[in-house]
């Protein structure tokens, strides 16, 4: 879900930067300074977790986990994902600089949507919470793939087919992320329910 350098047009890149900046500003406003160590360590955990690769058929895929990050952090997902992506760029040269804004929006926007749409649902009892968590994981990847497609197509109309292929390639990932998010939420509900769905961060 990272778009690398040299593909997107100027206007798309700039829009990405503007939207990412706006989202980050909102996220930072809701993040008190004393909450920064927690956000930072969660960012590090998210970074480490995204290095995990999970088998699917004959190959394996890296986890994106933006759904669960959204549930835990709400708007805080923007600065946290921005920082994690920046570190991925610096440490692995994975991702891009001009595309940092766009990539942040691609991952963080679905995270925030998840927080609002699925956040209230995962607080409920397991019969509701777990399917909601599955939907959260799958939808976050889906929404991200849509945004990738949008960025590509807005750059160049002729990229529409490429966008479709990228989106289709993410369907298996959607399912796996859905499953893993569901189990992860089940885990957190039992072990540390206060970590969900991020209402400590959300203080205006």
């Amino acid at each position, binding site marked *: 879900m990272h778009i*690398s*350098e*040299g*593909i*997107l047009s*100027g206007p798309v*890149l700039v829009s990405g930067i503007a939207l990412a900046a706006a989202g980050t500003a909102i996220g*930072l406003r809701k*993040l008190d300074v*004393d909450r*920064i*160590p*927690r*956000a*930072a*360590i*969660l*960012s*590090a*955990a998210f*970074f*480490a*977790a995204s290095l*995990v690769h*999970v*088998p699917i*058929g004959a190959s394996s895929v890296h*986890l994106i*986990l933006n759904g*669960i990050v959204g549930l*835990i952090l709400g708007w805080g997902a923007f*600065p946290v994902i*921005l*920082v*994690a992506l*920046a*570190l991925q760029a*610096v*440490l692995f*040269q*994975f991702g*891009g*600089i*001009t595309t940092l804004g766009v990539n942040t929006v691609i991952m963080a926007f679905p995270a925030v949507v998840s927080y609002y749409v699925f956040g209230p649902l995962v607080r409920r009892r397991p019969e509701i919470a777990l399917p909601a968590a599955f939907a959260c994981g799958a939808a976050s990847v889906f929404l991200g793939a849509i945004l990738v497609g949008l960025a590509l197509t807005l750059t*160049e109309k*002729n*990229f529409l*087919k*490429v966008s479709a*292929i990228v989106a289709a390639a993410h369907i298996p990932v959607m399912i*796996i992320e859905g*499953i*893993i998010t*569901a*189990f*992860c939420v089940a*885990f957190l509900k039992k*072990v*540390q329910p206060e*970590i969900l769905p991020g209402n400590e961060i959300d203080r205006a």
Partner: protein
Amino acid sequence: MIQEPFVCGDSQIHRLDPRFRIVVVAAYAFVVALSDRFSVLFLGLAFSFVLIGISRLPLFEVAKRLLLVNGFVLFLWFVVPVTFPGTPLFHLGPLTATGEGLLVSARITIKSNAILLTFIAMIATSRVATLGAALSRMRVPEKIVLLLLMSYRYIFVMETEYHRLARSATVRGFRPSTSIHTYRTYAYLIGMLFVRAQARAERVYMAMLCRGFSGKFHSLQEFSFSRKDGFWAGCTTIALLGLGVLEWMD
């Protein structure tokens, strides 16, 4: 294990002001990313080679980093030429590759590699702590810089913690496969990582408070813009302007 193989060199580039390096890389990245003429792109690529040369980085390591990006680019080579409309060049079974599609793929390839190489030469040669301090001097909001530096600080810790948990699974016979048991195990490992992260964060925060933390970020690092930096600034500005002119002036 996450490694930083590029920071301990000692070249001209390593000694340049990191603030300058950040600005140059950003400017370069945008100029190259937005250019279309092959003359400009090849020149840009040449610049990136020159920078890598000056930085005296181990080429094998650099090449390894390029692999990841070029993996995705390779995927694009398979997909773009056959989906991009234009003058057909050749047929591959039911698929038709177009000239325009190939050119687009070629451009993307050159741009990705050029920007990546420049990034490696100029940014990956700096410690994250230094980059953070530089950003803070460039008036980037304090909260973000603090977030960046602390995240960096804990990445290695989290990675180790994850590996320890994963080891516990391995030692009890866990073998990843495409199964619900596998996905559940990974979900638990990740969930436990988040829980432990949260607990650690509370302890870290208390430790910071006990030593007077009030939200302000202080750095021991000092930056000074020297004559050499000025010389480099001049050269790179001219180079980038040159590229810009080549690209956008008829």
